[in-house]
Structures are given as C-alpha cells and as structure tokens.
C-alpha cells in the first residue's frame, strides 16, 4: 500500500458515503431525515433558501454597483480567498464580496463611479 493511498483512505470513505446519499431512493432520504427528528420538507426548503441566498447575494452586489454607476463585467468575477473579486470597467476600482457572509468591500463602494460621472457631465454640457 502506498503512502498516498494510506493518506487518502478516510477521504475515500467520506467520498463513497457522500455518493451513497445520491443513490438513495427518494422515500429513503425523506425517511432518514424524519428518523433524525427533523421535518424533511422544512429541511429541503432550507437547502433551497441557501441556493436562493447565493443568487440574492450576486444580485445585491450588482444592484449596489449599478446604483453607484459602476460597470462590472459578470464574466470577470474571480474566486479569491472565500469570496469573489471584480473591477469596474469604467474607473478600474475594485470590489469584492465574501461568500459566507455576503459582506461587500472595495473602493468601488466608496462612492459614485468617477469615470461615468465625467461622461454624464460632458454629455450635459453639450446639451
């Protein structure tokens, strides 16, 4: 047995057990949760809310940036240390948010996008 295998044994057991959950018939998983004393439908909706919260998180970030006039390309969210990072295409200021808490940070949130404000002022002066 190699050293690598030796180190991976527990991980293999965990992976196999995780996979075995997916093989369970629908009734069995509902039963398993009930046996543990929880309401399976409440638990299921809680899981859906975890997914929805993540969706809401991105929407909140996008709306906040939009309200400040920043323009970030959704393609360029880069995963970075427990969160994601992006830059405003107009002014280059950065923004990031953490996945666990949804906390947003970065210079883009400190104020309106100066590059866009400049364009708006120029357009207004032309009129």
């Amino acid at each position, binding site marked *: 047995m190699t050293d690598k295998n030796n180190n991976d044994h527990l991980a293999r057991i965990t*992976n196999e*057990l995780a996979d075995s959950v*997916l093989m369970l018939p629908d009734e069995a998983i509902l039963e398993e949760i009930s046996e543990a004393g929880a309401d399976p439908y409440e638990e*299921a909706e809680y899981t859906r809310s975890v*997914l929805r919260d993540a969706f809401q998180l991105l929407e909140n970030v996008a709306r906040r940036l939009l309200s400040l006039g920043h323009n970030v390309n*959704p393609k360029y969210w880069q995963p970075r240390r427990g969160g994601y990072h992006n830059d405003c295409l107009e002014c280059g200021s950065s923004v990031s948010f953490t996945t666990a808490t949804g906390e947003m940070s970065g210079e883009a949130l400190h104020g309106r996008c100066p590059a866009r404000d400049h364009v708006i002022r120029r357009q207004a002066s032309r009129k």
Partner: protein
Amino acid sequence: MASSPLPPTRSITASPKSALLVENDESLSNCFRRHLERDGYVVRTALNTQEGLRLFCDFKPFNVVLIDYYAPRSNGDKIDCLAPQVHGVQLAMAVRNLAPLQGIIIAALDFQGEADVPRPRELMQVSLLTETGNGQLRGLLEKMEVDRAIKALTPPELLKLQKFAERLVRGLGRRARGADWEDLLREAFLRTWIGAESRQNGRHWNKKVDFVRHLTWAMRSICDSWKRQRSNERETYLISELSTLDAEGRERTPLDYIASRRAPADQQLIDREEEDQVLALFNDDLEAKQVLRGLIDGLTNSQIKEKYRFDEKRYVAITRRIRKLLGNRAQA
C-alpha cells in the same frame, strides 16, 4: 412516504423550453430567433408590443420573454427614442404585473451599459441585453435556466444535496477551516452562476447533465481545490523561532533537514489509528466492516459489491447504516 406539501416537479432537462420574442427589426429578430432556437427554445415572435401582449396572455408562461426596448406599440408606429413612455418597457411592466416570476430580458442595444438604461424601479432587476453577439444572450438565458432549475428541485433532491455537502465537508476535516455544508453548496452555486457567462472563472452547467449531478460535481471539485490549496499553504516563521537544540546540544534549523517525500511516520500512525477507530465502530456489523475495509483497500464500489456479493439494494442499506452511525457519532 409522507405526503409532500410541494407540487410535483418534472426534471429540468426533460422540460421543453419556450420563448416569446418581441422585435420589429427583421434582421435582429432573425438573429435572436436563431440564437434561441440553437439553445433549444421554441420561439413565438411578435412584431409589436400589442401583439406581444396578446401572445403572452394566450400562451404564458414562457421560459423567457425577450423584448426590444424600442419595440413599437403597433405595426406602422414610428419609433420615437425620446418618447417618455417606451413601449418595450411598458410591455415588460405589463408582463411583470401579469406574471411576477416570468423571466424577462430587455434588449437595450442602443445603450452602452446597464447603468445607462432608463427604466422604472420595478424593472431594475430585469436582465438587460446590450450586445448583439451570442455570448451575452446565452449567458442571460443560462442564468434563467439555473434559476428555473433551483425552483424545480424536489425535496428529496434538495435533501440529497444537503447530505452530500455535509459528507464532503466532514471529509475535509481541519482543512474545511470552519466552512460548513451551506458554504460549500453556496460556492457551487456561485461557480455555476458565474460559469453561465465565463467557463474560465466559473463552472459551466452542461444541460445534458442533471442539475443535481452538476452541483455535486461542482462541490467535489471545490473540495478538491480547497484541499490542494490548504495543504500547500505554509505559515511564515522567523528561522530563530524554529531553531532547536539536537541531542548533542547543537543548534539546528529546519533548513538542516531535507524534507522526505514520504508521509511522516507519525502521520501514518495517526491515519491507521483513525482507520482502526472507524472500523471498531462496526465490530457488530460485519457487512459494514467489509465495505469500509474494501474502501480502505482502494476498491471501487462495484468491486466491493462483486467481492462480497452484495446486490445494489443491500449495498445501499449497508452504506446507509454506516452513514447513520458515523453521523450519530459526529453529532455526539
């Protein structure tokens, strides 16, 4: 089985997709229709907002309603970009009022960015298309599909995702660094969401794959990358902080020692001890012990089934017993 309070849902991959396209410009209409049809949508087209509203009322709901910002109210109407009421926006408002959950995309091709597009507060969350290329439209459609897939997940599917995530996080041990199953599932979703527009930074969902299966793959890959990153991370110390005296009283620093490629002997012992502890839990359950032994020896689940002549049903029951006992122990 207990009666479900939720309506039954069909598999997302088996559902037909429909789109309503409201566009008076023929070349744009053809272009959008082509993109939609290529992505598997059945498309109904209206040339103006009146016809669009009629089609919407007759055939709603659609998977997506794509409306040109400057679509005319009726055929022959001149398009007035300076009009205070834009008919495309009015139609989007009407659709939203009739079906608040309807996925809508407004094609605002005359604007440079989302921030430039004037629209009522109620439509601030509606997706905007500002490029004619296929990339942005495809990204927006994919996001709608992901959203729809989440809504369509059944309670058993959601519970399986939860339990799967719990298992993987437990397997990370200390390398989880405080992350729980919610963090892992959230991360898998975010990667999928970003993957709708960028395969480089996110994880693209191939629609031929069931959404649950996709999320489980994403979670596994995230766990693997967490493991790799967290195994490679090293803390920084001053050499003087790490200096020790050897048996003969000489000062030695870690640089005096060459790292071995082998796992440290004490780590091997710890691993074996942990294995023995896990196996000892199943002293009264020979079948569970056989499955665990097989996994420790590196066998796949089909090899284990073959070796011990377990049929599928029996194997599922055994793994269930293992999960239950290990789960109870972890909770305790």
